[in-house]
């Protein structure tokens, strides 16, 4: 049996070893030898502070009581790590980008750098975690006591209180020494991380060693072990499904939210890629940690007398077998679990307390504007952190002293988990939901905290301790719905599940409703966009508008926080990057943003923001700044819209050009066709004129009648030629718009009658004309001669081309307000549909058998009507052909 002095000696030696390792790590880091320090192995091992003494010792006790259920505490974190891509990847990126120093800092930073929120989170964290620290102290002292005298497991033969005090003292010294050596989170706590990595190895090795001893040394191999497990009192499967589900979820949530886990996961993260290694390596660690829990529990239940505390089977089983060395190793494992947890938890909490509680008070009390000693704020920060560490460990110790019995502490682990899980909605909402607001986060946190206190924390002290018996039985103020263990009258739920479900669901409800009904400040919206779109935004948005803040003032402030050397280096680097050669960069928004981030690494986002704000003259986020944060995709969209508009414009222009080109080509074709037509038309009469004139000149012996005949043919052809040229000239004049209208007034009927008479004059058999005039005369004011020309043409056409046994022409006149409508309808053979489109074209002859027409008549008609402001169209009719002339009653004034 090891003496208590030997134990203390081992503890001290172990502590000294840790100090040496931490020192060596710090020295190595200082000399740039970070290759091993910054490896994913160390990162993964540092995550093992999740496994505290509560899990090291408690898991076996848990298994001895309820079988496999203990494993849920490891399943949640395993799932979170395996699912690193979903949450942790983003959390780590944000934490690094925003220089988050703690979970409180992250939440405060996300919601507009609100210090009130940071204080709320800090207070909740301290209340939630302090009992947990007390639990570690208790574990160590109890294990010491068991070692000293296993028969009296709960009350050893030594002064436990004194032992706890010295352990707490040692831990405080270690944390102060290695946790506050530097301020900036850029320089990680290499010594601490290295020490806890070593402790992780120690505790894993210890637990596996005990497990191997139990399985192969006592049970006699895995097969016998399995049989023994099934034969034991916990061998049959008894599972509370709601606990299995809820505890898995709870441990996953706590893994993300516990301040110490945030510290090692995010703050101490050296390289984001380490996360991918930890994604499988940490579940492996957890798996190994829990692999031998059930065997140890079963063997413990089997070997040790009834009534032994199963929480310390890890220790008491080897002791009972006389394996003092193994028991010592096991003790060191528990000691490691406890110390590493306390160190990191204290570090994380002290950062929170110092940054969010002490520093704001200090800055508001002290006149910070005046000239001060370089580095004075830095010294205050370091001092406040050290004091915070001492205070928190002292709180843990006090809690341990006050709670005394182990019974109250046993449940603290899960209670603490539920407490910190209240951060989850604000945290996840903050990184995934841009619309979540400070009001929502505050509401959610507060409601969650209150419900957790009422359903979990306060009842844990026992009935009648804080909450009276009557509250347990009949609710607050006798309201039955407000019973701490049966909220809203729903009974029969396991108390942890009850607290977890109610606190978290009411928390989420308050968070969502608060976010939906409130409106975020510009800074919140800015930060929200940066958090949620952390992968989309590589650059940082500017939170400060350019101001008159003097660089000297900023320099003084930076020196006060960072210390002179670091501040000067920072300013020098910034000045160089701005292209200036001096030591003072221009206070551009980029520089202010960068400076604030650097300061935030030391004193937290809210404090840094407030301090920069003091010098710059208030946080000013302009609308332009917010606009600048607008998604890059929006900018791309705008750019692409512009491109699209330009391209559409180009397409339009190209289309216009194409149309113009087509028209020109068409005109050219038309011109060619016209020339060939006109040559043909001119050639025919010219040929006959030449032939007959040659006959007259050369032939001899022509009789008088023959001479007359030939001469009259020449005459006729000349007339035809003249008429053709007249028509062409007419058409040309009309088409060029050079014609001047000779406007006169007269009734339409007279014009038609004149046209009928003129048209019929040259024909032997006059075409019968049926006239349908309106009752009243239609007065016209237009170029009556030209109009008459159109009528004559139409009537002549009908006369010439109407093929019918009894040809006749119907002329109908109608009138509306502005137009006279004259319809010329014959009863001949209709023009084929295919050629109708051509009849108004030049030289278009449809059924001109004798070839007397030049094919210009209708073209001239159309031109005339266009000049008169009307038109002439072919109207398809069932029988015969019909032309409709539309002419305005009063000709529009000529443009000239």
């Amino acid at each position: 049996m090891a003496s208590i002095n030997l134990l203390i000696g081992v503890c001290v030696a172990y502590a000294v070893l840790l100090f040496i390792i931490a020192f060596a790590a710090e020295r190595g880091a200082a000399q740039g030898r970070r290759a091993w320090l910054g490896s994913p192995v160390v990162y993964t091992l540092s995550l093992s502070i999740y496994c505290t003494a509560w899990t090291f010792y408690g898991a076996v006790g848990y298994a001895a009581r309820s079988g496999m259920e203990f494993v849920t505490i490891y399943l949640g974190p395993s799932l979170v790590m395996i699912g690193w891509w979903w949450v942790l990847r983003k959390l780590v990126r944000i934490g690094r980008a925003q220089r988050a120093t703690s979970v409180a800092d992250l939440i405060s930073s996300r919601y507009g750098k609100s210090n009130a929120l940071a204080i709320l989170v800090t207070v909740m964290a301290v209340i939630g975690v302090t009992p947990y620290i007390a639990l570690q102290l208790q574990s160590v002292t109890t294990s010491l006591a068991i070692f000293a005298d296993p028969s009296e497991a709960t009350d050893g033969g030594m002064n436990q209180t004194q032992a706890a005090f010295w352990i707490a003292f040692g831990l405080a010294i270690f944390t102060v020494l290695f946790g506050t050596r530097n301020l900036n989170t850029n320089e990680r706590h290499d010594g601490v991380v290295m020490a806890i990595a070593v402790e992780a190895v120690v505790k894993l090795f210890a637990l596996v060693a005990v497990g191997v001893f139990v399985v192969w040394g006592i049970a006699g191999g895995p097969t016998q072990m399995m049989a023994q497990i099934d034969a034991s009192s916990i061998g049959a499967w008894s599972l509370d499904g709601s606990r299995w589900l809820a505890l898995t979820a709870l441990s996953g949530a706590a893994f993300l939210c516990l301040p110490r886990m945030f510290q090692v996961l995010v703050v101490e993260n050296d390289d984001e890629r380490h996360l991918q290694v930890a994604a499988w390596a940490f579940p492996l660690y957890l798996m190994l940690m829990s692999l031998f829990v059930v065997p140890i529990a079963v063997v413990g239940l089997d070997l040790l007398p009834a009534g032994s505390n199963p929480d310390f089977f890890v220790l008491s089983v080897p002791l009972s077998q006389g394996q003092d060395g193994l028991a010592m190793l096991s003790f060191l494992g528990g000691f490691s679990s406890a110390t590493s947890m306390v160190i990191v938890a204290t570090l994380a909490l002290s950062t929170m307390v110092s940054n969010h509680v002490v520093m704001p008070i200090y800055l508001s009390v002290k006149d910070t504007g005046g000239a001060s000693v370089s580095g004075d704020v830095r010294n205050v920060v370091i001092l406040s952190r050290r004091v915070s560490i001492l205070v928190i460990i002292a709180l843990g110790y006090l809690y341990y002293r006050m709670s005394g019995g182990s019974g109250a502490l046993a449940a603290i682990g899960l209670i603490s988990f539920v407490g910190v899980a209240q951060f989850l909605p604000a945290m996840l909402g903050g990184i995934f939901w841009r619309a979540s607001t400070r009001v929502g986060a505050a509401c959610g946190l507060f409601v969650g905290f209150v419900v957790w206190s009422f359903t979990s924390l306060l009842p844990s002290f026992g009935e009648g301790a804080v909450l009276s018996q009557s509250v347990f039985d009949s609710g607050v103020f006798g309201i039955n719905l407000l019973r701490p263990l049966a909220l809203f009258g729903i009974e029969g739920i396991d108390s942890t599940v009850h607290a977890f479900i109610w606190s978290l669901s009411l928390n989420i409800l308050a968070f969502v409703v608060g976010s939906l009904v409130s409106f975020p400040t510009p800074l919140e919206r800015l930060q929200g966009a940066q958090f949620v779109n952390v992968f989309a935004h590589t650059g940082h948005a500017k939170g400060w508008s350019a101001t008159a803040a003097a660089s000297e003032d900023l320099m003084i402030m930076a020196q006060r926080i960072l210390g002179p050397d670091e501040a000067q280096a920072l300013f020098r680097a910034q000045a160089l990057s701005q292209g200036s050669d001096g030591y003072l960069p221009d206070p551009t928004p980029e520089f202010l943003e960068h400076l604030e981030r650097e300061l935030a690494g030391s004193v937290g986002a809210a404090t840094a923001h407030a301090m920069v704000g003091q010098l710059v003259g208030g946080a000013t986020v302009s609308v332009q700044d917010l606009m600048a944060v607008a998604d890059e995709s929006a900018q791309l969209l705008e750019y692409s819209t512009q491109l699209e508009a330009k391209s559409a414009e180009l397409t339009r222009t190209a289309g216009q050009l194409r149309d113009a080109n087509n028209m020109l080509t068409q005109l050219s074709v038309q011109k060619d066709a016209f020339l060939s037509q006109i040559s043909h038309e001119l050639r025919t009469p010219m040929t006959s004129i030449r032939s007959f004139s040659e006959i007259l000149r050369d032939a001899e012996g022509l009789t008088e009648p023959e001479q007359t005949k030939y001469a009259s043919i020449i005459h006729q052809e000349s007339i035809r030629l003249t008429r053709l040229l007249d028509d062409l000239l007419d058409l040309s004049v009309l088409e060029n718009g050079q014609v001047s209208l000779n406007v006169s007034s007269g009734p339409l009927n007279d014009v038609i009658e004149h046209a009928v008479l003129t048209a019929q004059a040259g024909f032997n058999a006059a075409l019968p004309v049926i006239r349908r005039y309106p009752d009243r005369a239609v007065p016209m004011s237009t170029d009556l001669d030209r109009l008459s020309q159109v009528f004559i043409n139409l009537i002549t056409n009908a006369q010439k081309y109407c093929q019918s046994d009894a040809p006749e022409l119907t002329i109908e006149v109608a009138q509306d307000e502005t137009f006279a409508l004259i319809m010329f309808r014959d009863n001949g053979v209709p023009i084929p549909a295919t050629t109708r489109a051509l009849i108004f074209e030049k030289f278009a002859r449809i059924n001109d058998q004798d070839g007397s027409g030049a094919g210009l008549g209708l073209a001239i008609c159309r031109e005339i009507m266009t000049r008169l402001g009307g038109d002439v169209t072919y109207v398809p009719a069932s029988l015969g052909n019909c032309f409709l002339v539309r002419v305005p009653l009063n000709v529009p004034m000529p443009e000239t």
Partner: protein
Amino acid sequence: MASKPKPPIFLERRSYRKRRLMDAVRLLPVVGALLWMVPLIWPVVGEGDVPPQQLSNAAVYVFGVWVLLIVLSAFLWRAIKAPDAGVSSDEGQG
């Protein structure tokens, strides 16, 4: 019309493989959660006539799933960190 340049619709075999690996990474925790919730439907003591699940079997199952997830996760990590992984689907999300 010329809109903004779109990523190619079809990837070459290698990037395609990388993206599917990322899909697997995303899916893995869901699979794990489902498998680990299977014990909820096992028969327990004092419920019906079915004999309760043996604790050793339960432990083998739970640890088996654990090992499976660890092995798959480690395999995916190795596959993804292979040269010029780029993990293009890594960016622009969220």
